[in-house]
C-alpha cells in the first residue's frame, strides 16, 4: 500500500495523501493525469471497482472537487481520488471507457453540477430533471428555498413567534439591553 502510494506520488505527483480510517485513503491528483492514474490503478493496482464518482462544490476556492472512489477487493482498500477542476467552464475527461456505470455518473454531474464530460455517451440528455432552466441545482450558489418560494406555493396561515422576543415584548418591553 505504502509503496504504491509512494510510486503514485512520484509518478503522478499526487498530493494530500491522508488515511481517513483503516482501509480508506484520500489523495489529490492533477486534472491532466487523472484519467491515466485511474487506468493505472484499475489495471495495475487492482482497484477494479468504481464505488461511485461525485463532485463537491468548493465555491470559496472556485473549484469543483471530483471524487472517484475506487476499491480493491483483494487488499480490501479504498482509494478516494480527488481532482480539482475550475468552476468556470467546468470540464473533465470522461472515464466511460474504464467503467460502464461511469457515464451515468457523468450525466448526473453534467446535469446537477454543470460539469461537462466531452465524449461521454448521452451526456446531454436529461437525467433527473426535466426542462430545468436554472443554474445546476447542486451548485452552492443555487438557493433551493428561494427557488421553492418562487416556483411553488405553500399553504397559508402559518407563522411562528419567537419565545424570547415574545416574552421581551410582554414582560419587559422597556428593559434589558438597549436595542
Amino acid at each position, binding site marked *: 500500500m505504502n509503496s504504491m502510494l509512494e510510486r503514485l506520488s512520484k509518478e503522478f505527483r499526487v498530493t494530500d495523501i491522508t488515511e481517513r480510517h483503516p482501509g480508506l485513503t484520500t489523495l489529490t491528483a492533477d486534472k491532466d493525469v487523472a484519467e491515466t492514474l485511474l487506468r493505472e490503478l484499475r489495471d495495475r493496482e487492482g482497484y477494479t471497482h468504481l464505488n461511485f464518482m461525485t463532485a463537491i462544490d468548493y465555491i470559496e476556492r472556485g473549484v469543483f472537487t471530483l471524487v472517484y472512489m475506487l476499491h480493491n477487493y483483494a487488499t480490501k482498500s479504498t482509494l478516494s481520488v480527488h481532482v480539482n477542476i475550475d468552476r468556470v467552464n467546468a470540464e473533465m475527461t470522461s472515464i466511460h471507457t474504464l467503467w460502464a456505470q461511469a457515464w451515468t455518473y457523468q450525466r448526473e454531474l453534467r446535469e446537477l453540477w454543470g460539469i461537462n464530460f466531452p465524449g461521454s455517451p448521452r451526456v446531454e440528455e436529461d437525467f*433527473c430533471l426535466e*426542462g430545468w432552466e436554472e443554474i445546476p*441545482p447542486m451548485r452552492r450558489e443555487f438557493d433551493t428555498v428561494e427557488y*421553492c418560494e418562487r416556483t411553488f406555493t*405553500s399553504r397559508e396561515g402559518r407563522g411562528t413567534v419567537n419565545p424570547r422576543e415574545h416574552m421581551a415584548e410582554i414582560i419587559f418591553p422597556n428593559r434589558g439591553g438597549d436595542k
Partner: protein
Amino acid sequence: MIKSLSTDATLANAGLSAEEQDLFSNARPTAYEPYSIKAVEDFANWCRANSLWILAFGTGCGAIELRPLMTARFDANRIGVAGRPTPRQASVFIIGGYSSVKTLKRIVRSYEQMQGPKFVIALGICPVNGGMYWDSYNTIKRLDQYIPVDLYITGCMPRPEVLVAGALELKKMIKEGRCDGANRYVENFDWYKANQKKVIKKWDMPDYNW
C-alpha cells in the same frame, strides 16, 4: 378558486409540434352531469362506490404501503378495491406522497386519461403542504394546485389500516355524491392548467385530450 374565465371552445395545444396537432383532439373537458332521476344517480353512485379501481402508479413512497393493502393481510379486494394497470380502466388515483415535477407531468397525463367519474386520494403529508420536501427544488408542495383531490390521508406513511378506512370513507362520500373533484377540474380548468404549466417547464404534450 377562480372560475374558468376563458370562453374559447377549443384548446390551443401549443406544446405540440405542427404534425402532432392533428393527432390529438383540442376539445375542452366537459363536466359530469348527474342523472336527472335521483334514484338512478344514487344507484350509479352505489355501483361506483363498490368498484374502486386504483391506478397502479406508485408515484412516491406511498406505494410501499399499497402492497400490503392489496395482498392477504389487508386485502382491499374485499371492499371492491382493485388495481388496474391502465388509467383508462381506473377510477381512483392514489397519489403516494410527494410528487416530483417530472412525475407531476405523468400524474396530470394519467389523471386526464382516466375516464370519469374519477377520484383522487392524496396520501401522506407531502401533497398537503410539502411535507419533508418543503425545501426541495424538485417536488411540488400543494397537490391541489395541480389536480383536484377528494380525500387527504395524513401520515408518513399512512398505514394500510388507514388506507382501508380511507377507502371506506371514499365509498361513503361517493354514495352521498360528495366527490366532485373531477367537476372542479373542469370548472377551473384554466387555473389548473396555468399552475401546471408554471412548474412543468417542458410542456410537449396536448393540453387535455390524449
